[in-house]
C-alpha cells in the first residue's frame, strides 16, 4: 500500500537526528516495548509480514510523528485486539476482563537464547525456475496494490539490472494477507540514481532494492 512507511525520496523531514553515544534504549518503556513485541509475536497468531502491515496501516500523520517503538506498540495493540488476545476495554482499563484465548506458542525465558539464535529464516525451496538471471535488464512494474507490498514507489516503472539472484523467499504480498507463504524468487536489482531521480541526479550513485519476481518484468 502507498502508506507513510514508503519514505524513499520524500523531502522535508529535516536533518538526521544523530546522537553521539546513543543509548540502546532511551527509556524503560522502549525496552518493554521491544520485549513484548518479540514475545507476543512468538505466540504465533501472526507472521512478520502481518506485523509490518499493521504498522504501515497506521494513519500517515501518526506513523510519521511517532517514535519507532510507539509504531510497534500501536501495531501490537491492533494485532492483539484483532486476533482476540485482548479486547479494547481491557486495553483501556489495563486489566484482564476475559479469559485468554489459546495460542500456538509461548516464549519461556529458558528458550530465549535458543529462539533468537535460530531466528526465522524466510528462504524456502523454489517451486519454479528463476525467470531472470544475473545481468538481465528488467523493469520494476508499475503497481499500486492497496495491500502489503515491498516494492517501494520510487522504483516502480524504473529500469534496472539484476545484480544477484538471492533464492526463493516467502512472498510478503501473499503472506501478509492469509495467502500463505507462496515462495518467489528474490533478486537484487540495481538502478542508477539518474534512472530513479532524473538527469540532475549524481552520476556516481546507484541504488538497489531486493525485489520478489512478481514485482519485475522484462524491459
Amino acid at each position: 500500500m502507498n502508506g507513510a512507511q514508503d519514505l524513499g525520496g520524500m523531502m522535508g523531514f529535516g536533518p538526521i537526528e544523530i546522537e553521539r553515544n546513543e543509548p540502546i534504549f532511551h527509556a524503560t518503556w522502549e525496552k518493554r516495548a521491544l520485549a513484548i513485541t518479540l514475545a507476543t509475536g512468538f505466540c504465533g497468531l501472526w507472521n512478520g509480514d502481518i506485523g509490518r502491515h499493521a504498522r504501515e496501516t497506521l494513519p500517515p500523520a501518526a506513523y510519521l510523528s511517532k517514535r519507532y517503538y510507539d509504531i510497534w506498540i500501536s501495531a501490537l495493540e491492533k494485532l492483539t485486539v484483532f486476533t482476540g488476545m485482548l479486547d479494547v476495554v481491557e486495553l483501556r482499563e489495563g486489566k484482564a476482563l476475559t479469559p485468554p484465548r489459546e495460542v500456538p506458542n509461548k516464549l519461556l525465558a529458558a528458550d530465549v537464547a535458543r529462539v533468537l539464535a535460530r531466528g526465522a529464516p524466510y528462504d524456502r525451496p523454489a517451486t519454479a525456475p528463476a525467470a531472470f538471471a544475473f545481468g538481465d535488464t528488467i523493469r520494476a512494474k508499475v503497481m499500486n496494490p492497496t495491500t502489503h507490498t515491498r516494492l517501494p514507489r520510487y522504483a516502480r516503472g524504473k529500469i534496472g539490472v539484476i545484480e544477484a539472484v538471492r533464492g526463493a523467499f516467502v512472498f510478503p504480498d501473499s503472506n501478509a494477507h492469509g495467502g500463505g507463504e507462496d515462495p518467489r524468487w528474490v533478486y537484487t536489482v540495481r538502478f542508477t540514481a539518474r534512472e530513479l531521480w532524473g538527469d540532475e541526479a549524481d552520476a556516481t550513485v546507484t541504488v538497489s532494492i531486493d525485489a520478489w519476481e512478481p514485482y519485475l518484468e522484462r524491459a
Partner: protein
Amino acid sequence: MSEDHDHGHDHSELSEVALRVRALETLLVEKGYVDPAALDALVETYELKVGPRNGARVVARAWTDPAYRERLLRDATAAVAEFGYSGRQGEHLVAVANSPDQHNLVVCTLCSCYPWSVLGLPPVWYKAPSYRSRAVIDPRGVLAEFGVTLPATTNIRVWDSTAEMRYLVVPERPSDSEGLSEQQLAALVTRDSMIGVGLALSPVGSAS
C-alpha cells in the same frame, strides 16, 4: 523511575506511550501469553550480548585474513556464524566491502530492517523518516551530515533492504593500522562504519 522520563520535548506524549506499554505488558502477562522472565531475557540480550562489537570482530577478521574476507563476501551468513553469531534479523546476511572506488550505504526505506545479529538494535535515526527518505535520493548529503566527505569520483552504492537480506558494510581498513592485533583493529570498527554512514577510525585519532 527517572528512566521513564524521556529525553526530548514531548514529555507528556511519551509518558502516555509508557502507560500504554505498561498496560499491554500487564495484560499480556496476566492472561498468560508472555513470560515476564522471557521479557527480561530479551531486553538483556540486546542490552548486553548482541551489539556492534559482534560486527566489529567480523570486520577485523576480514581485514586480517584474506580467506575469511573471501568467505564473508561470498556467504556472510555462514562466515558470521563462524563467530557464533546467528539468528534473528541475521538469517540472510550479505556483506558488502568498501573500496577506494566504491562506498556502500545501507538503509531500509520501508521500515527498519537491520542486521541485528552483527549490529544489535538500530539507532533511532536509522528508523526515522529523515534518514529513510534521503539515503536513496541524496546519499552524499546524508554522508555529509555524518561528517563523511568522499571524493566526488567515488561511486556510492545504496542498498535498500526491501526484502529479507540484511546488509553489513565492510569498511576500508585504515592506512597506518599495520601491526595492530585483530582485537585492536576491531576497536576501530564503528557501528556507523558498518552501516556506511561512517568510516573506520584511524588508529592515531582513536589511541588512548
